[in-house]
C-alpha cells in the first residue's frame, strides 16, 4: 500500500513530503517491531494495566514527533529512553506511587540496552499466531474477518452473507483488525492459550 501524498499541509514542498514519508517508513520498519518488548517494559514498570495502551500510544507519538526533526541512530535505545522518561514524568506528576517504583524504572537501563530475540522467529511463528488470534476473536468478528480478509469479500458482501447490517459488519471488522494487529506486533503473545 502506498501512502497518499499529504495534501493537508499547504506549504508542503517536495523535501518536506519526503521527510514525512521517510519518518513513516522508519517508524514502520524500526519502531513497530519493538512493540512486544516495549509492551513488556511498560507492563513490568507500570502498575495500572489500564494505562498501558495509552502509554504505548504516547511513546509512539513522542518518538514520531521527535523523528520529524532527526531520525535517531539507535532506534531501540531512543524508544526505550522515551518510554522511561514518560513513566518517570507520570510518576512524579501523579504523586501517588511509592518512591521505589521510580527506582525500579531507573534501574532499567540494562534491560533497555539488551537486544531482544523477539523478532528472530517471527516469520515462522507468524501464521500460527495469527490463526490463534483469529480463533480468540468473538465468533461474529471472526466470521467477518475470515470473509473479508481471507475470502476477499467486500463489506457489503459480508453483510449479505452474515445477514447483519453494514454497520455491524464495520464494528466486527474494527474489533478483528485491532486484535490481529496486536498479535502481529506481539503484545498478546504472552496471553495464555
Amino acid at each position, binding site marked *: 500500500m502506498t501512502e497518499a501524498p499529504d495534501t493537508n499541509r499547504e506549504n508542503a514542498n517536495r523535501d518536506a513530503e519526503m521527510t514525512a514519508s521517510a519518518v513513516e517508513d522508519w*517508524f514502520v520498519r524500526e519502531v513497530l517491531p519493538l512493540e512486544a518488548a516495549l509492551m513488556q517494559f511498560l507492563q513490568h514498570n507500570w502498575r495500572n494495566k489500564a494505562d498501558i495502551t495509552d502509554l504505548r500510544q504516547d511513546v509512539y507519538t513522542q518518538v514520531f514527533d521527535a523523528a520529524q526533526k532527526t531520525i535517531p541512530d539507535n532506534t531501540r535505545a531512543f524508544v526505550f529512553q522515551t518510554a522511561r522518561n514518560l513513566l518517570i514524568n507520570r510518576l512524579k506528576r501523579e504523586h501517588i506511587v511509592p518512591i521505589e517504583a521510580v527506582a525500579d524504572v531507573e534501574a532499567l537501563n540494562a534491560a533497555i540496552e539488551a537486544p531482544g530475540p523477539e523478532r528472530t522467529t517471527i516469520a515462522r511463528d507468524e501464521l500460527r499466531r*495469527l490463526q490463534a488470534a483469529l480463533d480468540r476473536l468473538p465468533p461474529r468478528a471472526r466470521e467477518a474477518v475470515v470473509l473479508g480478509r481471507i475470502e476477499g469479500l467486500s463489506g457489503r458482501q459480508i453483510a449479505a452473507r452474515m445477514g447483519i447490517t453494514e454497520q455491524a459488519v*464495520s464494528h466486527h471488522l474494527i474489533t478483528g483488525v485491532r486484535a490481529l494487529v496486536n498479535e502481529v506486533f506481539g503484545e498478546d503473545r504472552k496471553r495464555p492459550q
Partner: protein
Amino acid sequence: MNDASDIEFKAADWLQRRQFWNWSDEDQAALDAWLAEASAHRVAFLRLKAGYAQTERLVALRSTKPERAPRTRTRWFQAVAALAAIGVIGAAATFYLAKPQPITYATQVGGRQTITLADGTRIELNTDTLLKLNKTSAKRSVTLVKGEAYFQVQHDAARPFVVETAGHTVTDLGTKFTVHTEQGRIEVRLVEGEARLDAVDTAKPQPSMLLKPGDVAVATANSMSVKRESMSRLSDDLGWRRGLIVFHDTTLAAAADKLNRYNTNKLVIDAGAARLKINGTFRADDAQTFAQMARDVFGLRITATADNTRLSR
C-alpha cells in the same frame, strides 16, 4: 486529550472503511484531514495499516472454492433431512420385525453423516466410522464399532441410551457427548448433562465413572482416566462436526495423524520435521492446504505421490 483506545478505534474504522467499502476521493480527503489533526492519529493509523498488511499470510487459509460454500451447505441439509427420514423409517420398520437385524451406518474416510432416531436422538458420525443400532426392548443401545460419533440423546430414564464400544459402555443420563474408538482405546467427551462410563469385559473390573461437562475420559482394556477440559477447548475438539480441525501447539506428527483420519492421501512427516508445532483451524478434508502452510511456515519440502504427501526439511 483523546483516549488512546478511542483513537485506535477511529483509526481501525478508517482502515476497514478504506479496505472493505467504497472509497471515494472525498473519503480519502477526510482521512487525510483526520491524520493531519494530530501525530497520535497518524501514528495509530500507521501502526494498524502496517500490522494489517502483515496479516496477508492469513490468505493462505482461503478455502479452495469459496463460492460453493452455500450450495454445499444446502446439500448437507438435504442429506441430513434424507438421513433423518431413513432413520425414522428404519426405526419404524424394525419395530415390526420379529428378529430385527442391527441397522448399520457407515462413513467413508472424509465422510460425515447425521442420523436422527425415531425418539429424536441425533447421532453425527465422523470420518471412517461404523455404528450399529442394536434393537432391544429394555434399553436403547448402539455399538460404535470404529471411528467417532457425537450423540445428542433424548433422555428417557425408563429406557437408557447406551453406547457400547471396545469393552466399555457409555450410558446417557441426559446428555450430549462424543465417543471415539480406535484400536481398543476410547475417548469420551462430555459436552452437556451427565453420562456414566463402565468397563464391561475387562479382566480386572473397574468402577464406574460419572462424567460431567468438560470431562474427557480415556479408557483402554485395563485403564480409565479422566481430565477436565475448558468448554472452548472441548468445542474445538468437536470442530469436526463443522468439518474443521483445531490444533493447539500440536506437533506436525500428531496433526498429520489427525488429518489422516479424514483423507485417503496420507500425510507423512519426516522425523526432522515431526516435532515442529502448529496452531490453527484447518479443514479436515484439505490436507493439501495444511501441507502447503507447513511448507511456507517452517520452510519444509513437499514430495507428493498418489498415496501420500511427504513433508521433510
